[in-house]
């Protein structure tokens, strides 16, 4: 079963779907939506089959396929997935059908074409699967850049206020990062022996001159830090997340931003181990600043979508320090965080989208006491908020906890400062929930007819799988961690750091005394 070309088919499938949906005339909107949904469900089924076929404890990279592309550059269509890529692919496969269903009526309010929107969503899925499945750096770069185009048009054509500004800012920020990476990719190709194959480059990694490796690391890191985004490269995200349609925003922070952290794990750490260790303190500082700074800004937001975007930046700070702590615990926590954040923040964005669709505004001040009108929906928002602040029992708690204890064993100071981020998270989530759904009913809100309609069946179908997964992974994350752990261990081996035993912490403290 593992000989089946899962990854190439998974990559190409949504592209074919996008073309099919794009060819449907705009009058047949329902048909286009149905095809898009069915298509994404087929991708989901195939992904589940692939998950089952993945041998836990087997080779680090599985389902490897390689086809010739540009022989004179040794660029090939090489696909391979390790545990980290596998869980991300699974997250993509789950989130897309959910988002497609959640976006069912999004286009109807504008005069834009519905088939175009759903075709763009499928095209975006194509680039997302491609970027996580690629094991050839040239191919990875191609997907890394091409993913901007569908998202650019989704934000620019179907977004809310200031969509043009947000779309252009998003595109330019990402393109700038991408071009830094292009320079690094070319440099890596030259010093790495004129090949783009990840496996060959990882072998040659040790022989790269130290100074060159640091520059190349920086080229990759800037691109990934912009994509993630880490402080101080984050300013595009609140604009993009605020302007994008809620479903697309869920994909933006839920999946696309993970390309940054995934890229750091796969490319920065494994290909430039020495440079990674050298830059780690700086990256940790950026992570910690991001946690605190973004959380403070989130507290002050009056726009729900921008608020969620800022919470996302804070969460990426956690993921960042988990990666650069270089312990298996923290690394596993980070990867698990990437999955859980996709579920929790994705859910939060989608629910916020449901509120915004009813009210016609994303401003917190336009709500107030909404729970009295739409009690169930308000309950879902509360749950999504709790998951987002990592309440024990929800999935994000486990990952956040793993990151913090993994970091504490080596960098107690950073871990302590990062922990204050949890308090701030409680502040921004609970205050947001209180201002929108609790308290006295905003009289203006009562006059909006759409607000009288509580959660619909379609919306229940949208949120149910995400809620279930968040609870399930909150109590029993083992299936996911089992897949992630070997891949993270292998990455830490590439970096060349050993997990400290419990004694070493004690020893360090003694020395400190």
């Amino acid at each position, binding site marked *: 079963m593992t000989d089946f070309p899962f990854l190439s088919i998974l990559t190409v499938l949504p592209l074919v779907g996008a073309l099919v949906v794009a060819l449907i005339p705009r009058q047949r909107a329902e048909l286009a939506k149905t095809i898009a949904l069915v298509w994404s469900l087929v991708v989901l089924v195939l992904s589940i089959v692939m998950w089952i076929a993945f041998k836990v404890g087997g080779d680090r990279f599985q389902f490897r396929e390689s086809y*010739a592309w*540009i022989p004179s550059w040794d660029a090939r269509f090489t696909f391979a997935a390790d545990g980290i890529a596998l869980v991300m692919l699974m997250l993509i496969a789950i989130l897309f059908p959910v988002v497609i269903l959640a976006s069912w009526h999004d286009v109807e309010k504008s005069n834009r074409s519905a088939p175009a929107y759903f075709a763009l969503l499928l095209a975006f899925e194509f680039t997302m699967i491609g970027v996580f499945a690629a094991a050839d750096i040239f191919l990875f770069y191609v997907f890394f*850049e091409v993913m901007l185009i569908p998202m650019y048009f989704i934000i620019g054509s179907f977004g809310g206020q200031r969509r*043009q500004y947000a779309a252009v800012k998003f*595109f*330019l920020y990402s393109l700038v990062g991408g*071009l830094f990476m292009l320079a690094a990719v070319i440099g890596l190709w030259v010093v790495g022996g004129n090949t783009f194959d990840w496996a060959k480059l990882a072998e040659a990694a040790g022989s790269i001159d130290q100074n060159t490796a640091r520059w190349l690391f920086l080229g990759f890191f800037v691109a990934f830090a912009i994509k993630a985004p880490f402080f101080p490269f984050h300013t595009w995200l609140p604009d993009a997340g605020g302007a994008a349609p809620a479903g697309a925003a869920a994909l933006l922070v839920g999946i696309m931003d993970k390309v940054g952290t995934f890229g750091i794990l796969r490319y920065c750490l494994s290909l430039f181990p020495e440079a990674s260790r050298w830059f780690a303190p700086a990256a940790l500082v950026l992570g910690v600043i991001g946690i605190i700074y973004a959380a403070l800004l989130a507290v002050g937001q009056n726009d729900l979508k921008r608020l969620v975007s800022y919470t996302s930046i804070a969460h990426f700070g956690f993921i960042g320090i988990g990666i650069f702590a270089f312990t298996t615990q923290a690394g596993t926590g980070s990867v698990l965080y990437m999955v859980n954040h996709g579920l929790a923040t994705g859910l939060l964005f989608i629910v916020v989208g449901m509120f915004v669709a009813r009210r016609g505004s994303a401003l917190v001040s336009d709500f107030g006491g909404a729970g009295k009108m739409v009690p169930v929906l308000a309950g879902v928002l509360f749950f999504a908020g709790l998951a987002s602040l990592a309440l024990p029992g929800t999935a994000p708690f486990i990952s956040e906890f793993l990151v913090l204890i993994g970091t504490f064993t080596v960098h107690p100071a950073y871990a302590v400062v990062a922990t204050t981020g949890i308090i701030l998270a409680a502040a921004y989530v609970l205050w947001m929930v209180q201002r929108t759904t609790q308290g006295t009913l905003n009289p203006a809100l009562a006059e909006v007819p759409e607000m009288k309609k509580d959660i619909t069946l379609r919306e229940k179908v949208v949120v149910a799988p995400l809620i279930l997964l968040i609870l399930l992974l909150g109590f029993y994350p083992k299936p996911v961690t089992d897949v992630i752990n070997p891949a993270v261990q292998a990455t830490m081996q590439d970096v060349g750091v050993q997990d400290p035993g419990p004694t070493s912490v004690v020893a360090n403290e003694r020395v400190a005394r």
Partner: protein
Amino acid sequence: MGDLKLPGIDYGALLPMLILFGAAAVGILIEVFTPRRSRHAIQLTVAFLAVTASFVAVIVQHSTRKITIGGAVAVDGPTVFLQGALLVLGAVSLMLIGERSIERGGPFVSQAAITVGSQKDVKQAGDQPGMTEVYPLTLFALGGMLLFVAANDLLTMFIALEVFSLPLYLLCALARRRRLLSQEAALKYFLLGSYASAFFLFGVALVYGFSGGISLSAVHDAVANPERSQVLLYAGLAMIAIGLLFKAALAPFHVWTPDVYQGAPTPITALMAACTKVAAFGALLRILYVAFDGVRWDFQPVLGAIAVLTMLVGAVLAVTQTDMKRLLAYSSVANAGYLLVGVLALNEEGLSSTMFYLVAYGFSVLAAFGIVTLVRDADGEATHLARWAGLGRKSPLFAATFTFILLAFAGIPLTSGFTAKFAVFGAAVTGGQTWLVVFGVITSMLLAFPYLRVVVLMWLSEPNESTPTVSIPGFLTSAALVIGVVATFALGVVPAPLIDLTRDAAQFVR
């Protein structure tokens, strides 16, 4: 005086050029002997037949590697490849030049001597058929370019430079509409071009003084074992370079580009953007790689600075443009900078990647200008950027095509713009010119902005009353657009065949 010995001439190797010059001469006779009504069809047919025959002749002798006609012409890998590229790009330009269905009478004036703004001028702009001398002129220009990339001595190169430049000066002046702008463009191009030619010729004289010969191999030998003052060498090289940099539109010798690109009839602009660039860089490659490679350490930093300046000037000024043709002109300047980065790798990859870039860029730019010819209102082409607002709603197909071409210019993957940039940057890093690549990457970021602005205008702005219509292209323009777009896509997705071709061709004979 002994017997005068005639040099051996390999007519087979010269055949591509002979066909074009012959057909151009025939074209002049056609002007004299055929009635006005049928001239357009005959001239167009003759031009296409000539280009095709010439291309076949290039294909037939694709493996020829020799120097012939007394050392004046070198037929080697780069010559054959660049001649083939010139002919293919020239054929596509001819399609744009030959289009008559978008505008009555075609894009060219019927009698160039009519006073601008007079009654007669209004009448000719209305309905009179355009002049058909453009076809022989185009063939002469193409023939000259073919010779330019093959020239193996400095005088032949100078003659080829003039042969392809003079028809272009004329062609620039022949726009049917906005004739003052067109004539101004032609005059500017002519005056500055003459200056550049004079520089080139003076440089040739100095280099002759240094080396005692004009053939590139003689120069190469003299550079290796200098017997006379090096001042002659450096001054001569600098002046020759100025002549070539002018034709290639490299800063600070680029100032003519926006005016000429804007004023010239758009099909001629396309011809210049695609083919003149190939010819100019072909000659530059030959001069630097064959004749002066002995002093590479001296010219590399100077030309490197020029490349950086060109990329910066092109990118920064492109941001400020409000006219589509001027925007594309500055983008072409910036692209000349990227090409120079490839040239300065000064290794085999540099040669092959530059040739690849020339072909890739040529197809994209032809398609871009092809679309510019289609966006029109009652006064002809609507080139002001503001007029393009909302075009995506009015004609999604053309807006999508143009967007794709712009993404190619911006170097987004899956377009030829990306593979071409990758190729030249890779060659430059291999050749130790990492600093040029850094500047190349930075300017690519700047340059993305104007392209993106056009995309935003077309798709994200609402159409208004002044949004022009997109004309239904005739068969020829459609064919040119399809070729340009398909090539841009194909070279972005499966560039391997052309890369292999350029690699096989990347060897000069000396």
